[in-house]
């Protein structure tokens, strides 16, 4: 109904009735024409340029704010100082020793935790009794906040690399076990029956059916584990260590060298991104092999 129609409604019953019948036969209320909302995708270069622009603005704002005294340069440091410290850190300090230390403890912990965890998860396929007995222990261990055990682990394994590897292992082991065991439980019993009807031995069923079947579960845990392993290694270095990026952050914080904190965090993030990207790549290669 349009605006011009409304005054006529007040003209009396006759008019109203005529109006109603006229309306029934005449055109119905026109619906507003609506179109599918279309979102136009920007070209990649525009996206990247905008992202880069935001970064530049943040850094510039930070620099200006700290130079003009809007924020305290002592607590927050400033990009120019961080850059300066980064150059010194990389060229003069023992940056590479620290990076290497953190990298090694992360990778060893990751490999060890994932491998042993997956093998334990797979081993549950061999015996239902064994799985039933061991499972509550695994779940108990899962519920412990593993980082709370870190001081104990440092005491047992010492200040060196092995204690960091042990903490990273503790964080990654249980999740690998449980995820792989979820794969074992999802196995179709008819698949096993097919193998046995072909006269297969248990070892053949394990190698040709159980292992490839559980591989997607193991793969799915890789990316989670690399992050957990890095966390474990850093926490270990926080508590007691002679090397590592975690120790560098702690040391810099305690000496109020805030620029160095930022540098270490920056290097750590770069390391994390590199490891994460590598694991993602390995994951995609493995996934192609499993066709899932």
């Amino acid at each position, binding site marked *: 109904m349009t605006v011009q129609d409304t005054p006529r409604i007040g003209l009396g019953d006759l008019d109203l009735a005529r109006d109603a019948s006229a309306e029934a036969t005449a055109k119905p209320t026109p619906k507003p024409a609506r179109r599918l909302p279309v979102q136009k995708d920007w070209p990649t270069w525009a996206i990247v340029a905008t992202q880069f622009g935001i970064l530049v603005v943040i850094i510039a704002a930070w620099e200006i704010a700290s130079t003009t005294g809007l924020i305290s340069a002592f607590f927050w440091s400033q990009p120019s100082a961080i850059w300066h410290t980064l150059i010194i850190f990389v060229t003069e300090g023992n940056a590479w020793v620290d990076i290497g230390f953190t990298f090694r403890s992360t990778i060893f912990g990751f490999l060890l935790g994932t491998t042993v965890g997956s093998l334990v998860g797979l081993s549950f396929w061999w015996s239902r009794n064994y799985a039933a007995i061991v499972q509550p222990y695994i779940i108990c261990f899962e519920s412990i906040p593993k980082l709370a055990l870190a001081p104990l682990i440092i005491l047992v394994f010492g200040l060196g690399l092995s204690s960091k590897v042990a903490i990273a292992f503790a964080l990654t082991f249980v999740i690998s076990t449980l995820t792989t065991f979820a794969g074992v439980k999802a196995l179709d019993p008819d698949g096993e029956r097919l193998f046995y*009807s072909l006269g*297969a031995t248990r070892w053949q069923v394990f190698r040709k059916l159980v292992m490839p079947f559980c591989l997607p579960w193991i793969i799915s845990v890789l990316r989670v584990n690399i992050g957990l392993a890095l966390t474990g290694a850093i926490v270990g270095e926080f508590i007691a260590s002679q090397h590592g990026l975690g120790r560098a952050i702690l040391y810099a914080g305690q000496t109020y060298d805030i620029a160095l904190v930022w540098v270490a965090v920056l290097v750590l993030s770069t390391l994390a991104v590199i490891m994460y990207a590598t694991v993602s790549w390995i994951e995609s290669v493995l996934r192609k092999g499993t066709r899932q």
Partner: protein
Amino acid sequence: MPVKVHLDRVGMAFTTPAGTFRAVEPLDLEIPTGRFVSLVGPSGCGKSTLFNVIAGLLQPTEGRVLIDGEDATGTIGRVGYMLQKDLLLPWRTVLDNVILGMEIQGKPLKAARERALPLLQKYGLAGFEHLYPNSLSGGMRQRAALLRTLLFDTDVILLDEPFGALDAQTKLHMQEWLMQLWSDFKKTVVFVTHDVEEAIYLSDEIHVMGTRPGRILETIPITIPRPRARTTALTPEFIAVKERCLNLLTAAAPTMEAA
């Protein structure tokens, strides 16, 4: 004809809190060499139990299974067994799926592949050999599963409703394809189905089964000469057999409801 598989008073009973439950009444069944034999019956008549017993995956509570006159009760790897699900391994190509039986028996992979490849090409899987199962249609997957069973090289193959999940059109194609395969390979086939018409079209002999307890109601030989055209389904002989089967199955049904 010599007997290939002999079920000698094979029965299956389970002890439950409510008492002994008879899944399969002790039954005798002789399957002659090279014949195509079907078991037809409603669900719960013990067809799958019998198959598992013949395949050695289930120990019967009574009786024994003789294959070529030898006691084969509870021994695996003596017969080829195909379930309704194709169970193709998604991480293997069609070719590598088909050679699974030979691989498990320890045959060198190269020889196994060389043997399987021409068969895949001959029996309707040409061009699919090196693809993964996820790119195959339901009918194609069943073909691959059946060839895997055949290439296991046993004289007897058990087919548990292989075409049950296929659409009607594909099912007809697959039946004809199976007939060709059977006449080429000369295997002894035991076939389980719900579909009476399918059983008559394919078989030399039909065992109609009933439920509670699972038992054989009647054995009906099918004498329609081979090769059978699709139109044999319209002949009086075919229709008479079908009527007999359906009568047996519907007569068996009320007891199921009473129980």
